[in-house]
């Protein structure tokens, strides 16, 4: 019958974090999902079930914007996966070379864009690519490629890809650092064993190192996915809330911002905004689940 007395200190230690986290993160998250099921009629909130989602997916006015933003977002993500992560891995492979000098210097310099805010990055590239200032065309001219120049950010067909590449430029430091860390944990004995079998240089990278760092590549892929599907700042800073030209750079983040906050003549609609947030939540959840259950558990891990 000697029940241990209640350990108050555990509650005291947990309470602040749990309260703030629940009140400011978890509760609003579910409240947003709940708001997506309502609409405003004559200034009062009315429950409408899944009607907002129906509007979002099938009403031509909304669905055209939604599918456009979603498609753009996938393209944005694809460019990150195809350009940012391979460059990051290649840089990390070079940096982790045991006899490379100045490795710390390169590493710190290449990481600098990652610490800059989107506002700086967006405007800096906007100025550099601007045909008015002419840095980009004159540099292309210097290597004899002037004919390739176009006002990339102003053309519908190039703007999104250009911005994705700017974002790649900014964030390449993150995969570089994570892969670099993973490469450092590979024991020297394994590489030496490979060397005895005649596997050196690039072959050693493809046959020994790459399989060993696959789990880290999985992590950077899911980080890239989550980051890209709630991206907003770069597009907003360089193209504005309208994600011009003609919505060609619109992604889910800018679409949600415009919808719930309003812009110029359109009034903000928190309920449709919540519906878009709900769609984003579902997409991110599906991505994270595919990673956790589909990829992470099947990936072969080697004990080092």
């Amino acid at each position: 019958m000697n029940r241990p007395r209640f350990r108050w200190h555990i509650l005291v230690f947990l309470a602040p974090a749990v309260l703030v986290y629940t009140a400011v993160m978890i509760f609003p998250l579910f409240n947003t999902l709940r708001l997506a099921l309502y609409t405003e009629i004559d200034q009062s909130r009315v429950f409408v079930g899944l009607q907002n989602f129906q509007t979002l997916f099938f009403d031509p006015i909304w669905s055209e914007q939604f599918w456009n933003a979603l498609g753009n977002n996938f393209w944005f993500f694809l460019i990150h996966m195809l350009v940012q992560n391979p460059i990051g891995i290649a840089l990390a492979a070079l940096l982790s070379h045991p006899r490379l000098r100045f490795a710390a210097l390169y590493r710190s310099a290449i990481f600098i864009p990652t610490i800059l805010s989107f506002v700086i990055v967006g405007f800096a590239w906007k100025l550099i690519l601007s045909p008015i200032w002419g840095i980009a065309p004159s540099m292309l001219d210097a290597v004899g490629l002037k004919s390739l120049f176009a006002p990339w950010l102003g053309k519908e067909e190039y703007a999104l890809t250009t911005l994705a590449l700017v974002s790649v430029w900014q964030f390449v430091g993150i995969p570089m650092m994570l892969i670099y860390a993973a490469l450092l944990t590979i024991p020297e004995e394994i590489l030496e064993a490979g060397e005895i079998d005649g596997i050196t240089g690039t072959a050693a990278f493809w046959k020994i190192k790459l399989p060993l760092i696959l789990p880290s590549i999985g992590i950077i892929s899911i980080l890239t996915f989550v980051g890209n599907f709630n991206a907003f700042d770069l597009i907003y800073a360089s193209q504005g809330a309208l994600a011009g030209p003609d919505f060609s750079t619109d992604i889910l983040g800018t679409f949600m911002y415009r919808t719930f906050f309003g812009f110029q003549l359109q009034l903000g609609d928190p309920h449709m905004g919540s519906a878009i947030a709900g769609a984003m939540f579902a997409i991110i959840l599906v991505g994270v689940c595919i990673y956790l259950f589909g990829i992470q558990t099947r990936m072969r891990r080697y004990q080092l």
Partner: protein
Amino acid sequence: MNKARHNPLNMVAMHGALILYTLIALFPVFVILINSFKSRRAIFREPLALPNADSFSMIGYETVMKQGDFFLYFQNSMIVTVASLSFILLFGAMAAYALSEYQFKGNLIMGLYLALGIMIPIRIGTVAILEMMVATGLVNSLWALILVYTAQGLPLAVFILSEFMRQVSDDLKNAGRIDGLSEYTIFFRLVLPLVRPAMATVAVFNMIPIWNDLWFPLILAPAEETKTLTLGSQVFIGQFVTDWNAVLSALSMAILPVLVLYVIFSRQLIRGITSGAVK
């Protein structure tokens, strides 16, 4: 040592590739910084030249100082970042200690609950956060931002710190208990000083995203007196699109504090990332 892996030609190629990428990474920052010290004419005539006696001009900085309240923005950013980091570290360490030190019912569930937020971005809940801040009157106050960033930073902080707290020796804590120290004293006097390196890692991880965030300042605190430096420079640059001197100077002024912080903390940051804290 083993010569098979090291061939001088390869080394040159590797340095070549790294130097090329370093130039790509630094070029835009460099162009912005040098042009911010030039006269308008020089900016357009020779954008890639360094400022010299002839082209040197501070006109852009003068405009920025006159028009935008950059010191206020800077101060706001400092308050928000420092306050959020303090709360993340204090609350995060307390929760991490509770989870790693004590066996209690619901320990595992609580850990998983707090870990949910690592993968789900807080921005998804923006609509309800704004509604809540309006209802509580916190909108357009720095508190709104501090609360949001604290909530956003806690999950990863708890996760990283509890990993480290598991490594603190039980003997030390038990010795404290035998000496009659309370659980609170053990935590603040014995455990916290030992996990200081992990706290520094958490701090640098959270610092940059908080300082650079545009989304929440734009939505929760867009008033003139609560603008952060990121939002302030965004709005300022938007207004002065045609005044190239002012735009370039404002950009440089936004770059410099981050660069200084980076130079101070880069070793910590890189060590934090490479210690595999994100696993």
